[in-house]
């Protein structure tokens, strides 16, 4: 069967989620393989969320926050950026290709950029192929 | 090359009857609805634009104003009441003044005093000629009638002399018209300096000139066919009258009263009918203002109609008085006829509204030449 990459996206409520909504109101079309999860701030992203997404079968994970300086909570996106660098290192050591995890800034007015980003990442994932870690990860402490 | 705008051109154009052209906001409805506008020769919108901006050269070298026959569809459909039809009419007046090298046309169009003054001076000269000049050569009024009981017109106004005068007047008018048409040709075909037209094209397309003069096919393209008919009657009546008077006066101005069905009389009657019918339609139209083309009358429009009507009426009177043997009435009518006719021909034909009888067919001819124009080779 043809490979259809699954993309899980974490979008902050104030900028990126609103930007994704704007793509909808502007009727911009993009690949339907993306599944969006809303969080209040990109600073809320925990490594566990990313790992959980890969474990559940995501071929790629996308994190979007406000542009630097525009964070609704002043600096959550900076904290996200620092955490992202660490997660990126960690997932690579686990054998997850670098291209599968991406952090981008999308503002509330960038519906077009969001649609382009989704298509672009989908294209990248098609080239990289299916994720090899599907179903092989268990995140123990969260079972509670 | 960019064109320098001449905002002061507006003040000149206003004198030719152009109203508030800023009303136009260039939707292009007029050009879309015009039955005569065609690719390469679009109007009226783009000409209005040139007028608004004051682009003198482009205006003076355009042939399009003459291709418009003023059906009024554009004015009817204009959403801004900018009256494109009348703007084109005014532009024709402006162009007529530009073709004329004497500068008189401009004076006549822009000043009623000048035009009326000229008419009165020429009328006075005609009257003086009849009262003093012809009697000095031995021709005088006589109440003595012919055997048929008609008035001896030739005794008072001998056809030989009148014809010589007609010929010289025709020559002056022709000279003026031809020189103006040459200027028109220069402006429309040569001035842009980018294209050239071969001699063969000039010859091949020449038939269009005659065809357009006689049939006026473009006129009939406008939706209002009735007006084409009345205008055609007017034009043909005028042309017939012009030819018989200027070329065949010996045959036309006889003392003998010819039978009713003689061509001299039937042709005369036809021409008179044609003129009267055309004039009637035009005058009633301008008074009732129902047709768009008749809604806005420049001074020159009325002056032309009134003079032509008076000429026809005095002509009819001469005929009636002559065959009924009313000598004095005939002579007075004859003098009045000439006093109106001479200034009318001298002013209207080369300088004013009537010049369109020459410019219009030539414009169609020039348009055809422009269609066959090829880019000019650089002078290397």
């Amino acid at each position, binding site marked *: 069967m043809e490979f259809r990459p*699954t993309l*899980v996206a974490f979008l902050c409520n*104030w900028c990126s989620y609103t930007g*994704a*909504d704007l*793509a*909808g*109101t502007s*009727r*911009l079309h*993009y690949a*339907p*393989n993306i*599944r*969006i*999860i809303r*969080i*209040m*701030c990109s*600073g*809320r992203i*925990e490594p*566990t*969320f990313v790992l*959980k*997404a890969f474990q*559940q*079968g*995501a071929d790629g994970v996308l994190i979007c926050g406000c542009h630097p*300086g*525009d964070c*609704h*909570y*002043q*600096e*959550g996106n900076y*904290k996200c950026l620092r*955490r992202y660098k660490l997660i990126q290192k960690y997932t690579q050591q686990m054998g997850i290709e670098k291209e599968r995890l991406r952090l981008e800034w999308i*503002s*509330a007015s*960038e519906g077009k950029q969001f649609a382009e980003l989704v298509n672009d990442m989908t294209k990248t994932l098609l080239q990289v192929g299916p994720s090899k870690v*599907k*179903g092989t990860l268990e995140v123990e*402490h*969260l079972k509670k | *090359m*960019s*064109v*320098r*705008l001449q*905002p002061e051109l507006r003040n000149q154009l206003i004198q030719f009857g152009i109203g508030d052209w*800023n009303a136009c*906001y260039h939707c292009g409805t007029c050009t879309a609805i015009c039955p005569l506008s065609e690719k390469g020769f679009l109007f009226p919108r*783009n000409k209005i*634009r*040139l007028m*608004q*901006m*004051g*682009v003198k050269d482009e205006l003076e070298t355009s042939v399009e104003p003459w291709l418009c026959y003023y059906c009024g569809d554009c004015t009817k459909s204009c959403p801004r009441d900018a009256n494109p039809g009348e703007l084109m009419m005014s532009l024709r007046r402006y162009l007529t003044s530009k073709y004329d090298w004497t500068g008189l046309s401009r004076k006549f169009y822009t000043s009623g005093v000048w035009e009326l003054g000229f008419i009165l001076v020429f009328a006075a000269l005609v009257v003086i000629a009849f009262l003093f000049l012809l009697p000095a050569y031995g021709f005088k009024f006589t109440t003595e009638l012919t055997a048929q009981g008609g008035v001896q017109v030739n005794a008072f106004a001998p056809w030989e002399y009148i014809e010589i005068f007609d010929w010289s007047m025709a020559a002056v008018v022709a000279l003026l018209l031809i020189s103006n048409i040459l200027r028109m040709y220069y402006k429309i075909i040569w001035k842009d300096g980018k294209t050239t037209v071969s001699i063969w094209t000039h010859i091949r397309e020449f038939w269009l000139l005659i065809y357009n003069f006689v049939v006026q096919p473009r006129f009939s393209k406008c939706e209002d066919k009735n007006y084409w008919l009345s205008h055609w009657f007017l034009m043909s009546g005028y042309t017939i009258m012009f030819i018989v008077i200027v070329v065949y006066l010996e045959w036309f101005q006889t003392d003998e009263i010819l039978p009713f069905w003689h061509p001299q009389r039937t042709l005369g009657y036809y021409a008179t009918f044609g003129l009267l019918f055309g004039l009637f339609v035009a005058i009633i139209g301008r008074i009732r203002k129902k047709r768009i083309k008749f809604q806005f009358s420049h001074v020159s429009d009325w002056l032309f109609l009134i003079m032509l009507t008076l000429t026809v009426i005095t002509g009819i009177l001469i005929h009636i008085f002559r065959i009924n043997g009313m000598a004095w009435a005939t002579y007075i009518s004859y003098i009045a006829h000439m006093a109106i006719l001479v200034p009318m021909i001298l002013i209207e034909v080369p300088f004013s509204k009537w010049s369109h009888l020459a410019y219009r067919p030539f414009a169609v001819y020039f348009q055809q030449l422009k269609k066959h124009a090829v880019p000019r080779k650089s002078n290397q």
Partner: protein
Amino acid sequence: MEEPRIGVYICWCGTNIAKMVDVEAVASEVSSMPHVVLAKNYKYMCSDPGQELIIKDIKVHNLNRVIVAACSPRIHELTFRTACEKAGINPYLFEMANIREQDSWVHTDRSEATKKAIDLVIAAIRRVRFHEALEKRSVSVNPATLVIGGGIAGMTASLEIAASGKQVYLVEKADHLGGMVAQLDLTFPHLSSAQQIIHPLIQRVKNNPNIKVFLNTQIQQVHGYIGNFNTTILQNGNESVEIEFGNIIAAVGLKPFDPVVIPEYGYKKIPDVVTSVEFEQMLLSGLIQTSEGKDPRNVAIIHCVGSRNKKFHEYCSRVCCMTALKYVHQIRAALPDANIFEVYADMRAYGKGHEEFYAHTTHKQIIFLMFDQQTGLPRIRKAGAADKCNIIIEMDELLSGISIEVPVDMVVLMTNMEAHDDVKEVVRSIGVSLCGNQFFIEKHPKLDPVATTTGGVYIVGGCQGPKDIPDSVSQARAAAARILATIAQESVPVEVTTAQVNELLCCGCQTCVRVCPYSAVSYDESKKSSVVNEVLCKGCGTCGAACPAGAIKCKHFTDSQILAEIEGIMSLSYKY
């Protein structure tokens, strides 16, 4: 925890969703899931009958969790939460799935869109099981208001609030009140005097005992939250004043664009090329003259300077077209014989009386010349000795299709209105955000263009986007009404989705204390644990993500809720 009893509702949104998503299939697919009591689809869930349906079902079927799959939660989450509350269940036991903005409107393959909708609803079902009832909280409101900016919008809002007897602190960074309007001569479209509008207003503000005006003053970082803000303001650069207030109105306005950056226009290089602001000064002085002290014979007014062009600003400044037409009347009155050229890209006359004003002005013997704002900006050059004019404008005129040169003696540049240079500092100090054009972003572009996403902070006038006087005044009065309503209530609801520390799990590392941008987390030595001040906490969740011990719970965005959502969100696309 009680057994979850979930009701799922799929909205058609007319054809907006139903056209691209098989709503029947979504409902039937999820109806058999554990804990799902019922799954229904309905034409308009947000309509009164739609909400009634939820309320009735909650009562009849004893539901304790509700999911609506419809538009974005940013639009109707509050609607459905209120419906749940009416039916007697806690509003936070509700969850929304966005199958319109992020599904039916962005995809073209119906089966893919339906699959995605099912995934999103399953994720919501999984998530909602972990939802907890949260109690609403409210705080008292300080009746004073801080207004930043003393232009027409700020002054109008101040007077409106002060009229009810409440204290207003009006802070203006310049040494005088009046803003942009004070620099204008006449206003469009009625040609009434701007000075006669603004000066009485300034007097009323100055004489109002409830308004304290601070000139030459800039605000510092504002602390606190809706109802209870405080800050220190620096008057004249040194005197600091402590003020406390419950609400904030930002009315900082805009400033004119500097056309020096457009090389084609030669501003500041060619004499007699002036901006609209400088031209207003000329009109106020009553003398329209060239730099040589002569009456200009031809005047050109160039529109859209710095507007509607990606190189400068993409937006339209909204007021310049009408101002440019206003100049026609003023020039015509002063110089009856002058030729006036309106060099424009598009004529915009959207407001009340504006189209009529345009139509009326076109009859003032002016010449409109159209240029291409993207590729054909007019080029201005100094005229030569033989030209008989001061300036020559070269342009490709669109309506005639020819290249022209316009000889003029004066050029007025209709400059764009743009954000102040220090706007970023202002937004940061009051905790709001800017949109792409550096305008303050409103809470909702249509339904709430006065409020911001920060509670208690309102935006009025030009800083929200260029606007004319009536629009600024309406917005100012609207903001004042909103603030007076909260003052009248004496208390406002605050964020309930805050963070909470589980003192038993907290190891006392204080990472959370360091990451909190609002200083809402502190370390309690006696408890040997961090504690969250729930009044200060805005619920961003950064501390929760940072806590190495997993001791911080971010209410409504808990780990278990988000992880459950992740588990559900790929149900159809990947199962193992």
